[in-house]
């Protein structure tokens, strides 16, 4: 086998030798293709697998951990929440609309293949700055991504209830598009991606197979450079209508007991679905590509096996039930094609008109894929960036900085984004988009699910271990602010090239930090996705773990949002800051520095805070809750005033000194991003009970002010630092993003 062939397939010489050993002979071309996609980083997790094992995945509620199409947790009433996050970074950079749209399509399939009805979508996005040298391109990418997410999700009729958008230079050449889907299934009827039962027929249903996306999985496993343009045909066009038909037909089929297993054909298409289903069931799968519906003529078995055409499913059904299955698909104008059957020999056998063109043990493709424990090295940049010389900062007026922060795209309202998403279809959305974590009620029960995604690349750049902890803590805190108890998490790990020891170090640190935080907060990881090689021309993104947390609200009617609810309520700050400015939005925006130590976190205290929130919400003691994140307590207070019709607040904060300079005190107090802090409000008279609850749990809590009037007044130790009409602040905040797009085109 010559090097050129291996390089084209992204295989090393050692990997090739392994293939020969697994087969006991030289592979055919089709077999090389099959191995190459299954052993690609994207499918095999070969660089990440040893580390992902460190994540806690078990818990009393976990019904399905990692390994299936999606994870699942028990939510009572005989139901399961099924959810997973997935990245579509590379395709979205090449073709923003379709890349993002097909990302949404892919994650929805992962959910309904589990037997769940998808009820909510979220998206976590990272782009470069909207202005500056790459501004035009970035705006075009963002516009396309947002339209693509909406185009797919709105059509298929799944509410997009949340997400996040942040902007930073390292994403200019490599935006991140992570999408999360949440569904609900009967807890005792989760469907698996398993092939079993010798002689059971294997069906193919959905769109026809074309040459699109061949080697998409391999593309997602390589860096970008100026040659990437050649790999472009890997982008596909999404067909939400087809997916809607598949969704309804599959859910209808799952009402019968004719189905053994199902998996969607995502990355590595037919190859991945056949061998993974076989491997899970300990069975063989034999198919003849002749029966695979084809869109183009003259496709080779190689092309058919590697195609990543969208909206296709593979099903194994019970022998003797074929007519019933076919009838359900016909109802939805879908044609189910029988392409093969389950065998006893554990092999993936691919035939072309009866002639065998590939014959590989399923285990060799799936379980025996190479695993690397890649070298790690602490990056040299760390010592330099962690040093923050506060004395060198020229401190301005807090009131002006406050306005600038409100207008910063990362902090400003994302209404321009989510107004383009259908946030309410299926009439489950309790907390309107933008108000808090997404909250969807579960019809037929008293309950609701809250869900949030979070991740701060800047923190992780400064300290990937702590940054990952902070990401999980923030996501969990956000659902806790809605009044929910966090019950499960999913994660999307976006990093650079793992073959560079410095990147690998970031990765390992982040995974270990996440694992520690999950254990401390008692939130199991039920699944996720790893996206590596997020680099363009050798420049990596910030290490960016994005964490999605699902929380359970026992009484949907007790759901909290961030907006102050009434004039004259008491404002209480739960938790306390230490004026930490390292890695903050303030430092970046006002002083153009990405430096310092990212905020510290005490996980035990975080857990106590979240438990306190759930309890106080359930007891009806709170009127609103909002966590302090980007922009610190000042921005959090402002956000509590927004969407209230202009309700103001008067607040006085205790100065936070920490180690910082004296002239920095008010900035640090107002804009520092210390973790584990939440602004809540309660009726006058209820605050003693809130404070008492907090005291018993060891959570610092203090009444800091009261709602009322039409201005937001924030003092630090009695000296007024911010005094701004809410209407004015809200106008800045809500109009900032839109300004960038006003004059851009379709």
């Amino acid at each position, binding site marked *: 086998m010559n090097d050129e062939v291996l390089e084209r397939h992204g295989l090393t010489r050692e990997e090739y030798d392994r293939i020969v050993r697994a087969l006991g002979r030289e592979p055919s071309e089709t077999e090389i293709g099959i191995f190459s996609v299954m052993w690609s980083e994207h499918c095999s997790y070969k660089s990440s697998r040893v580390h992902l094992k460190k994540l806690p995945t078990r818990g009393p509620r976990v019904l399905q951990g990692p390994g299936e199409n999606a994870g699942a947790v028990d939510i009572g009433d005989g139901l399961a929440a099924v959810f997973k996050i997935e990245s579509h970074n590379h395709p979205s950079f090449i073709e923003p609309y379709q890349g993002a749209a097909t990302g949404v399509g892919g994650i929805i399939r992962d959910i309904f293949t589990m037997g769940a009805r998808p009820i909510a979508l979220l998206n976590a996005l990272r782009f470069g700055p909207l202005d500056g040298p790459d501004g035009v391109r970035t705006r075009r990418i963002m516009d396309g991504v947002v339209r693509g997410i909406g185009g797919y999700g709105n059509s298929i009729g799944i509410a997009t209830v949340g997400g996040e958008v942040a902007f930073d230079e390292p994403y200019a050449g490599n935006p991140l598009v992570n999408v999360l889907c949440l569904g609900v299934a009967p807890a005792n009827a989760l469907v698996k991606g398993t092939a079993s039962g010798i002689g059971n027929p294997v069906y193919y249903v959905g769109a026809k197979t074309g040459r*699109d996306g061949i080697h998409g999985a391999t593309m997602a496993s390589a860096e970008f450079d100026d040659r990437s343009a050649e790999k472009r045909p890997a*982008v596909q*066009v999404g067909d939400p209508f087809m997916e809607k038909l598949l969704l309804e037909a599959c859910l209808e089929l799952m009402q019968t007991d004719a189905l053994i297993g199902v998996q969607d054909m995502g990355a590595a298409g037919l190859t991945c679905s056949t061998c993974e289903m076989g491997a899970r069931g300990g069975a063989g799968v034999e198919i003849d590509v002749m029966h695979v519906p084809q869109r183009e003529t003259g496709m080779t078995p190689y092309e058919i096996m590697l195609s990543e055409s969208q909206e296709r499913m593979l099903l194994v059904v019970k022998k003797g039930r074929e007519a019933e299955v076919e009838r359900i698909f016909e109802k939805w104008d879908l044609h189910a094609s029988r392409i093969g059957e389950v065998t006893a020999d554990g092999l993936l056998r691919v035939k072309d008109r009866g002639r065998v063109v590939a014959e590989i043990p399923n285990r060799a493709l799936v379980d025996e894929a190479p695993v690397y424990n890649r070298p790690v090295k602490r990056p040299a940049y760390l010592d330099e960036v962690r040093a923050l010389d506060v004395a060198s900062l020229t401190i301005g007026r807090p009131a002006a900085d406050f306005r600038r922060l409100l207008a910063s795209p990362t902090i400003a309202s994302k209404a321009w984004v989510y107004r383009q998403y259908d946030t309410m279809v299926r009439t489950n959305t309790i907390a309107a988009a933008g108000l808090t974590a997404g909250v969807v009620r579960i019809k037929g029960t008293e309950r609701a699910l809250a869900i949030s995604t979070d991740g701060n690349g800047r923190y992780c750049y400064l300290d990937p271990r702590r940054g990952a902890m902070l990401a999980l803590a923030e996501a969990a805190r956000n659902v806790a602010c809605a009044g929910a108890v966090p019950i499960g998490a999913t994660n999307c790990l976006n990093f650079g090239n793992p073959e560079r020891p410095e990147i690998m170090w970031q990765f390992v640190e982040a995974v270990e930090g996440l694992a520690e935080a999950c254990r401390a907060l008692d939130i199991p990881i039920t699944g996720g996705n790893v996206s590596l090689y997020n680099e363009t021309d050798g420049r990596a993104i910030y290490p960016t773990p994005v964490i999605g947390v699902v929380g359970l609200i026992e009484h949907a009617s007790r759901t909290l949002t961030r907006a102050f609810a009434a004039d004259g309520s008491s404002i209480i700050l739960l938790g306390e800051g230490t004026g930490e400015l390292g890695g903050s939005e303030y430092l970046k925006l006002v002083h153009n520095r990405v430096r310092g130590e990212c905020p510290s976190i005490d996980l035990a205290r975080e857990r106590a805070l979240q438990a306190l929130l759930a309890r106080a919400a359930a007891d009806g003691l709170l009127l609103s809750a909002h966590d302090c994140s980007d922009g610190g307590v000042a921005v959090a207070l402002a956000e509590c005033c927004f969407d209230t019709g202009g309700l103001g607040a008067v607040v006085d904060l205790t100065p936070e000194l920490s180690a910082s300079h004296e002239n920095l005190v008010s900035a640090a107090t107002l804009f520092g991003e210390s973790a584990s802090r939440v602004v809540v409000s309660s009726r006058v008279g209820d605050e003693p009970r809130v404070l008492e609850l907090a005291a018993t749990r060891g959570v610092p809590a203090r009444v800091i002010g009261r709602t009322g009037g039409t201005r937001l007044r924030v003092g630090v130790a009695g000296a007024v630092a911010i005094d701004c009409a809410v209407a004015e602040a809200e106008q800045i905040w809500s109009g900032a993003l839109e300004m960038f797009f006003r004059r851009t085109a379709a």
Partner: protein
Amino acid sequence: MKARVFVTLKPSVFDPQGKTIADALHSLGYTGVADVRQGKFFEIDVEARTADQAFHVASEVADKVLANPVIESYRVEIPES
């Protein structure tokens, strides 16, 4: 001067829109319709003295704004008036 730009998905790219329309036509009894592909088409009014010049501007615009070269190809025509 008028220029026309036709933007179509590249032949290798799946066209769900065309496919859905073709399916609908079949179910309406137009069985003789084998295939439909849907594209976009733009009529552009450009200030230009020669057809060549108009062609040039329209091509540039098509390349930069109207088509995404990753999945689409385009064709420019200057109709004789």
